[in-house]
């Protein structure tokens, strides 16, 4: 993971000092709310239903154990002992006081954490695959390029007042775990015919009111040109993105209205003028950033060590539970003898994606002891210990189990992705957390969940789609009808390299029925699937939406 040098640290410290000044001028009345709001948004500070919310950046989802401990401290000192991990690999605190924010930010800054550009009409946290650097199917670690982009786009004077928010994601594996096709810019690392690695540049993807799958405007961009080409895209967007209507201000609308080809030509014209200038990345520039990336000093180990083999064959109840977790939450690592461990933050009946301060501390300790001090945050709102030696899996599991982050439901029906919804968010139409909780209760039987297999449920409390419902295998969107909470269901969405938006199932159903509908869909799937290993998504793709629609709406 990247370790700050004194330039990076100084910038964050100066940002804290500037924000302290701005908060002071707001509290004294020198700044009106209208003048202050964009400034606080650029520092990740929202005003929600009950309190201010602070969104802290976790750049491309990588966190050190020390940083996790700092988050726990901030949760205890300035909030209510917990934090919420988001679909963009950030963390949110929901009860922050504006008056205390500068102090909280100063504390975060000491560990190199900040909240810069986690909101506002600027470039947001750049996200990537939570298995970056350790997945066997990766061609190279995309985080180096994410960091190069992050620095270039932090407090960029030209792109701080864009028409609307701007989200960038990178992926470098055959299987896209970063949803690059539904971002404003998606960058897919791949090799060309000559064996060189570069970026497929995809523009204009996004969810929300008008969802779009992104369009490829440059099939292969050499690494050298990454910054200049992104600059050309942003400059084109900054000048010509719509500013008359906030619902039509994202780059996806500009790409749609111009057409992808015309948009690509505009970008190309601008890019030709700057590609050989100061933004061209030479080896020295890349090596400098790479030099501050710390990589684990892996031991030379063998796969399936005796500690593991013993429990694989064990007959005790505890052994069975361990095996279930092993099969569900542990995946192959590119280095022999190691594994990637996912920590489920989706316990039955609890808000999805939350961690308490004590849990954060315990996870930090485990990361130090068993994961080279590194933790990842996934956009599915789970955590990852990316470098666990297979021989340590039994002891790691016991520790994770003891703190409640070892529910073996990763990627199953109860591993729900949900926005905070009406319980917290002033934009919401309906609640999402209690819906998620009820669904997990209906599917708390692990045998049932395992039988249903890989099944992603995404819940959004409003059309802004922070829960990414459009790309859920089952998507649930909260709407309002006559002052009551209703939920519209879609099925068949997916966020990977074959990204597709879900199809609406039928009329929205009331709050009291939504969990029943999910049970009906699950039951329909079990009836309709060809074989046990045909996952829900593939069944939907094979038989279409109608059979599901019939079963769900037959009695309604």
């Amino acid at each position, binding site marked *: 993971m990247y*370790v*700050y*040098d*004194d*330039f*990076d*640290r*100084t*910038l964050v410290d*100066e*940002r804290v*000092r*500037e924000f302290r000044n*701005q908060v002071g001028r707001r509290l004294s009345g*020198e700044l009106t709310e209208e*003048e202050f709001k*964009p*400034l606080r948004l650029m520092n990740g500070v929202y005003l929600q239903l009950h309190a201010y919310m602070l969104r802290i950046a976790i750049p491309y989802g990588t966190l050190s154990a020390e940083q996790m401990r700092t988050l726990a401290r901030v949760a205890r000192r300035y909030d209510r002992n917990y934090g919420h991990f988001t679909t963009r690999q950030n963390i949110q605190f929901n009860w922050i006081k504006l008056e205390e924010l500068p102090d909280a930010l100063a504390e975060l800054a000491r560990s*190199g954490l900040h909240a810069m550009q986690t909101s506002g*009409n600027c470039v947001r946290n750049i996200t990537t695959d939570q298995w970056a650097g350790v997945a066997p199917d990766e061609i190279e670690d995309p985080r180096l390029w994410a960091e190069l982009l992050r*620095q*270039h786009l*932090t*407090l*960029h*004077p*030209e*792109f*701080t*007042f*864009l028409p609307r928010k701007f989200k960038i994601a990178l992926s470098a594996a055959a299987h896209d775990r970063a949803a690059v096709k539904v971002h404003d810019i998606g960058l897919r690392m791949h090799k060309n015919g000559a064996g060189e690695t570069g970026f497929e540049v995809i523009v204009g993807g996004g969810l929300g009111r008008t969802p779009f799958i992104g369009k490829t405007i440059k099939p292969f961009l050499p690494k050298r040109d990454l910054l200049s080409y992104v600059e050309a895209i942003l*400059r084109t967007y*900054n*000048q010509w993105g719509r*500013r008359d209507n906030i619902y039509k201000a994202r780059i996806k609308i500009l790409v749609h209205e111009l057409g992808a080809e015309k948009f690509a030509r505009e970008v190309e014209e601008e890019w030709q*003028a700057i590609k050989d200038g*100061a*933004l061209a990345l030479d080896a*020295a*520039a890349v090596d*400098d950033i790479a*030099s*501050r990336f*710390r990589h684990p000093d892996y031991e030379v180990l063998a796969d399936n060590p005796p500690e593991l083999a013993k429990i694989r064959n064990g007959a005790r109840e505890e052994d069975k539970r361990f095996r279930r977790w092993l099969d569900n939450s542990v995946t192959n690592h590119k280095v022999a003898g190691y594994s990637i461990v996912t920590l489920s933050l989706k316990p039955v009946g609890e808000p999805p994606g939350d961690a308490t301060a004590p849990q954060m501390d315990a996870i930090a300790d485990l990361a130090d002891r068993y994961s080279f001090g590194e933790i990842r945050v996934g956009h599915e709102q789970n955590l990852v210990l990316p470098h666990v030696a297979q021989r340590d899996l039994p002891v790691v599991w016991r520790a994770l189990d003891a703190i409640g982050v070892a529910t073996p439901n990763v990627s199953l029906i109860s591993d729900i992705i949900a926005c905070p919804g009406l319980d917290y968010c002033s934009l919401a139409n309906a609640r999402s957390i209690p819906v998620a909780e009820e669904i997990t209760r209906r599917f708390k039987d692990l045998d049932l969940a395992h039988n249903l297999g890989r099944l992603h449920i995404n819940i959004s409390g409003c059309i802004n789609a922070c829960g990414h419902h459009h790309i859920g295998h089952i998507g649930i969107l909260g709407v309002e009808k006559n002052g009551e909470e209703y939920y519209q269901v879609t099925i068949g969405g997916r966020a990977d390299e074959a990204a597709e938006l879900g199809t609406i199932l039928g009329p929205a159903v009331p709050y009291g029925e939504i969990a029943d509908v999910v049970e009906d869909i699950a039951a329909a799937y079990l009836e309709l699937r060809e074989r046990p290993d045909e996952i829900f998504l593939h069944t939907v793709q094979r038989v279409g939406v109608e059979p599901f629609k019939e079963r769900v709406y037959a009695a309604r």
Partner: protein
Amino acid sequence: MQLVKAGRIVEDRFVRVLDDAPLPEGVPVLLPAARLLADARDLVLRQAPIGVIWPNDRKIAELAPYLDWLALVALVFPTFKDGRAYSQARLLRERHQFRGELRATGQVLRDQLLFLQRAGFDSFEVKKDNDAAAFAEAVHRYSVFYQPTGDGRLSARNARASRLVPTAAFQDRPEVVR
């Protein structure tokens, strides 16, 4: 509203002529884009300086033919959240090498002054008197800049490259007592 130039509050020597009135003799004038484009052939012969107010939704390329003899280009921020003029400013300075006065007008507030300066603006019609007085504070808030713009400030990349030893990760350094 105060005009800030070279870090100080100054008098505006340019007279705004926003209609078709004849231009006052021998004084610098600031004209709307339409007037400049319509009267360019006459204006180019004028001795006293000429400035133009260029709207934020027109391409800078349209203005390029006149930059040689324009003393001032004023760009517009209808609200401070409308950031189109930042791109216009950079294109003027870095693409077209405009060397005249580049002025930010409209809703120009303290917290954008450093961004404006980095984008190439060198004069500012600052909305609030307090903000004008705080110009020096505003543009000195940061000593580290990640991106090169045309403003001449050293980018982090160049600063790092110019060090004789590679910059070490902060954790490797001895504890600094705060």
